C-alpha cells in the first residue's frame, strides 16, 4: 500500500468529519467519513497494513474529539478485523457489500461508544441513541463514498498478498 496516498485519504476523511459532518446531522448523529475510509482500507489492503491503517485512522479521530483517547482507535481496530475477515467472501465493488459493512462496522463502533458512555467511573455522558443513528447514516452514505473510493483504489497500489475473492 502506498502510505502517502493513505495519509492523504486520512487527512481528507478527518477534515470532512470535522468540517462537513455537523451539517449532515440528523437526531444528533452524523455519517462517519473516517469509518468509511477504514472500511475502504480494510476491504482492499493486505491484512497488516489494513489493521495498522485502521488503527491510525482511529487515533487521528481520537485527537479531534473530546470523547476520550483510544475509543475510536479501538473501535476501528475491531471494525477492521471484522472487515478483513470478510475480504475473501464478499464482492467488494457491490453497493450492498458497502451498505452491510457500513452498518455492521458502524454498530461495532456504536457498541464501544455506548459501553464507554455507560461506564460510571468515567462520567462520560454521551448520548446513547446518537451512535446508532450515526451507524445508520454511515451505512446509507457507504455505497456512494465507498463506490467513489473503489474507483480510485489503483492510486493506493494495494498488493494482493493472497488470492482474493471476486
Amino acid at each position, binding site marked *: 500500500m502506498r502510505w502517502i496516498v493513505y495519509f492523504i485519504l486520512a487527512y481528507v476523511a478527518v477534515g470532512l468529519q470535522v468540517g462537513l459532518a455537523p*451539517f449532515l446531522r440528523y437526531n444528533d448523529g452524523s455519517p462517519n467519513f473516517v469509518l468509511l475510509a477504514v472500511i475502504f482500507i480494510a476491504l482492499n489492503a493486505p491484512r497488516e497494513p489494513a489493521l495498522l491503517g485502521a488503527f491510525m485512522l482511529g487515533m487521528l479521530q481520537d485527537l479531534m474529539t473530546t470523547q476520550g*483517547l483510544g475509543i475510536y482507535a479501538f473501535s476501528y481496530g475491531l471494525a477492521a478485523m471484522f472487515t478483513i475477515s470478510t475480504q475473501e467472501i464478499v464482492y467488494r465493488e457491490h453497493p450492498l457489500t458497502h451498505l452491510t459493512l457500513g452498518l455492521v462496522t458502524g454498530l461495532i463502533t456504536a457498541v464501544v461508544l455506548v459501553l464507554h458512555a455507560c461506564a460510571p467511573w468515567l462520567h*462520560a455522558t*454521551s448520548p446513547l441513541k446518537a451512535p446508532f443513528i450515526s451507524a445508520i447514516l454511515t451505512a446509507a452514505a457507504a455505497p456512494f463514498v465507498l463506490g467513489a473510493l473503489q474507483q480510485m483504489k489503483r492510486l493506493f497500489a494495494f498488493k494482493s498478498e493472497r488470492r482474493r475473492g471476486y
Partner: protein
Amino acid sequence: MSALRFHHVFFLLMLLALVSTFSLSPERSAKITPQIQTLFAPIASPARAVGRMISERVSKSASVDPRPADAIATENESLRVLNASLIVQLEDLKRLNADRAVLGDVRKVSKVYTVIGNDAGLRESLSIGGSSLEGLQFDQPVIFIGGIVGRISQIGVAGAKVQLITDPKSALTATFGRFRAGEDGHTEFVHLKLASAATVLVQGAGNNTMVINTLTLEQAQGIQPRDRLILADDAWPANLQGYTIGEVTTIEPRPGSPLYLKITLTPSAKLFQLKDVLVVVK
C-alpha cells in the same frame, strides 16, 4: 515485520487503546491529547463553508417573530435609546468603581476566532483557529452575537477546542427572564422570580439543546415557552452575567418523576454550525 511480531504489536496497541478508553476520563484524556486542529483547516474550513451554504439553502429558517416589521423597527429604536442610556450610566458606575472597569460590552474584551470544525466524535465541541501561542487559556469563556457558546476545554500550540454549553458534560446556573411591553410602550426585560430557587441548574443535553430537570411543578409556575434563560453563575466572569444562554422550547413532566418538570432550551443559533466565535480574553 513477521506476522507473529505484527500480531504482538497490534495486540499491544489494541490493549493500550482499550485500557485508555475505559480507564482515562475524557478530562484526563484531554490533558494528554495534542491539539492539532489547525492542521486540518485546509480541508475542514472549505468543507464547512460548503456545508453551511447547502444547509442555508435547504433549511431557510422561518421568521420566528410574527409582529409586523414596523413594530420591530419601533422596538429596535426604543432599545437603542435605552441602550445608550444604560451605557452612559454604566460608564458613570465604572468611574465610581475602577476595579469593575472590565464591565460593559464584553465584545470589546474579546477576540474573534474562526471555527475550523466540530468534534470528530459525538460530543458537542468546536475546534477553533486559536492556540496557546496567541494567549488563549484553558477555561476562557466563548460567546457569539446571540449569547454564550461555551468554554475552552482543550488548548495546545496548534489548536483549541471549545466545549459547547449544549454538551452533556456542560452545566451552569442561570435565571429566567422575559421581554414584555412596559406600561409606557417600551419593551423591557424582567427577571422571573422562581418559588424557592434563585437560580437553576442547566445541563447540556446534546443535539443543540439544554435541559433543566431540577424544578418542581410548583417552582416552575409562570415559566412559558420563549422565556429566556440568562447566565447567573459565579464560576463565569462578572461581565458575562446576564448574557443569554437560550430560550425555553418545551416544558413537560419529567419522565419517571411526575412532580418534576423537564424544561428544554435551545440557543438562539445552532452552536455547532457557527462560523466565528468570540473568546473573552479579559
